[in-house]
């Protein structure tokens, strides 16, 4: 799928989810952040959390279903998600601070928030 198409889909998703951390009217920078986050996610996260974030592969240590914020163990606020990625979480989630810059982790947070269901409080 071309990057432009991904961005359009994500924009549509974001607009339909006013309660999410993404702004109701995301600007180009936010959309760009989600797109960058997706690229990083594909490279670093899919083996545990799956391509759709639902962690249905269920292979590596009961990875969190990222599409369901009620299943999060270490907080759902963007700064909490950021900390979980940066410093690790639970038993199995490793800290990524040595491999990803803070800016990249922020992009990942943007993408993860875009996985939440529409209308979710």
């Amino acid at each position, binding site marked *: 799928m071309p990057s432009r198409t991904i961005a359009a889909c994500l924009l549509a998703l974001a607009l339909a989810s006013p309660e999410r951390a993404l702004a109701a009217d995301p600007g180009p920078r936010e959309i760009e952040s989600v797109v960058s986050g997706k*690229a990083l996610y*594909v490279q670093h996260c*899919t*083996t545990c959390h799956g391509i759709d974030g639902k962690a249905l592969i269920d292979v590596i240590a009961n990875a969190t279903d990222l599409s369901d914020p009620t299943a999060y163990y270490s907080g759902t606020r963007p700064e909490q998600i950021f900390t979980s990625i940066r410093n690790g979480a639970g038993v*199995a*989630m*490793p800290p990524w601070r040595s491999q990803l810059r803070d800016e990249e982790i922020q992009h990942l947070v943007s993408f993860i928030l875009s996985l939440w269901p529409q209308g979710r409080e």
Partner: protein
Amino acid sequence: MSENDTARLQSRRDFLRTSAIGVGAAAAAGPSSLAFAADMGETEIPSIRLPEDLTTSLAEDPSPGKFEGRGQSGAEVFANLCKQEELAGLFCCPGNYTVINALAAAGIPAYGGRSEGSMCAMADGFSRATGEVTATSGTEGPGFTNMIMNIAAANAARTPLLVLASNMQIAGEDRERAIQTVYQQPTTEGIKKYGKRLIDPKRVHEYGAYAFRHLKSGVPGPVHLDFPAEVSRARFKDPGELTDFHDKSRYRTESRAHPIPADVARAVKLIQEAERPLIVAGQGVFQRRGWDALKRTAEKSDIAVATSGPSRGTFPDDHRLCTMTAPGCLMSADLVVFVGQYCMPSPGEYLFNPDIKAIRVHPVQEDLGRNWPLDLGIVSDEALFLEMLADELPRKKRGPWVTEIAAAKAAYQTQLDEVYGLGLKYSKDTGYLHPAVIARDTQHFLDHDADDRDAVVMGIGGWTSGLFGGRYARANRPANLIVPAYQYGAIGPDMAMMMGVCAAVQRGVGPQAGYEGAPTLCITSDAGMAYSLFELDTAIKYGLPTITIVYNNNAWGVWPHAARSARSMHMYLFQENLRYDQLAEGLGANGEYVRTPQEFNTALARSYRLARDEKVSSLINCQAIKEFTSGRAYPPGVSMNPEPGCGAVAH
């Protein structure tokens, strides 16, 4: 090492050396020459030794069935067909007596072991190392059902495995007569390519032909035949009593699908238009022995290559165009050519750009387009396609692509070095061996200290050990590396599977020719090893020099699944500090216990020398702790490896 330890080891070596020689010459040496005797008070414990009947039996000449005289049994008719088809080996436990005895008597190399499941894994391993058809057999009922996990593993790997089992009398059908009754064919539904319960004695040759047509055509897979007594014991004095009693040249063909020239022209055009083309060479390239054509194709047009499948090394990992250690460049590829990729991933499972164009070459038309949408599908034998492509492709240099691959390799190596450094630190801090150290030091030993790094076939299994080991293990010639967990993900066949590989190496079959005498090496876990440990007896019995490195972390590697669940952890744990090395010694092998990198390297060097020089198997018990699996406590912890690439197990 204390004086007592030294004396014990020397005494043990005496036994092991004699034991190893035994298979070839123990009959002459006699049991009295075996020096390993333990002294427990006033009771003298008899030595572990090889039975004289073993060596006598192995030295006997083949005696295949003949129509003359008493005639051939149904089992002998089948065995002679298997011999003509060059069945490469039989791995079994007693049971299905008439058939296994006939196969052995016909001259097919046969191995008998301790459990049908493990022997099935050995047969699978032999085939993964050679590409040849191998057989496994067990008794009806319990023996057959013991094989199920490993038949399924062979099915996922597309191994041409001939599964044989006896199966009651036809006259006893539906009556639960005697013991061990089971309906076999429904049990293997979904984990075989073809299966048949033979119910008509005169069709035994006909169905043997069915079996080999399936085993040697198209995409391979397990074939399951079950033999009622009326079939295996029937007798035939004339070929006319058998239906379709033809030579193999008449009941199957070696003809293969050639690619249509127009399809090859389209493939050439797509490759020429691409800036960063990549071939994924799957199991079909190995099965069809297309590695020379693959190399010629890649080098002619600077096409990158990744390999996949249960038998690795069809393209050398150290080649400048190989991406197995360069996951960072995969997203840049703009065209992928899947050749012989039997187990097909879906988009997203491979680390490719979603916009990548795709060509797929496959011997069976109906599989083209499954899972992965194609820009071009080509029906062809894998080797024939690669040969034609190599001929048709114009020479082309792709400097930027080659440079990017090299940079990605360097970046990946830096990552591996960093994790190894962490592993050394964790090992020093805790006093226990981290899996990254085991994995890296094993490959380092092969690269720098083994006589020939390519001679030793390695297999990587277990959970934590497998995920770490796969990253560091390298394959530089066909079937140089076996992936026991490939696709099916079974934790358990590893150790036995590598013994089957070892049998293939000792016999120099297929791509193992020229490496006879070399040891094989298996990295596995305490959880996985438990399924096949007793086959050390089998390895020693047949003089198979195997080295097994056990990552002993006192638990199932998946224990983090229990970390957030009440009353669950106990289900994931073993007793701590179990001495698998002592169990190995009890089975007649050399046992090593290590906790530091230095001890590990010393033990590995010693085990290698014992295997190489004296054909003695070793088990190295690497004591670790389960917490090394935790990414939080000991980053990076475990994670699945990017695919396609080193450590891939899914596709």
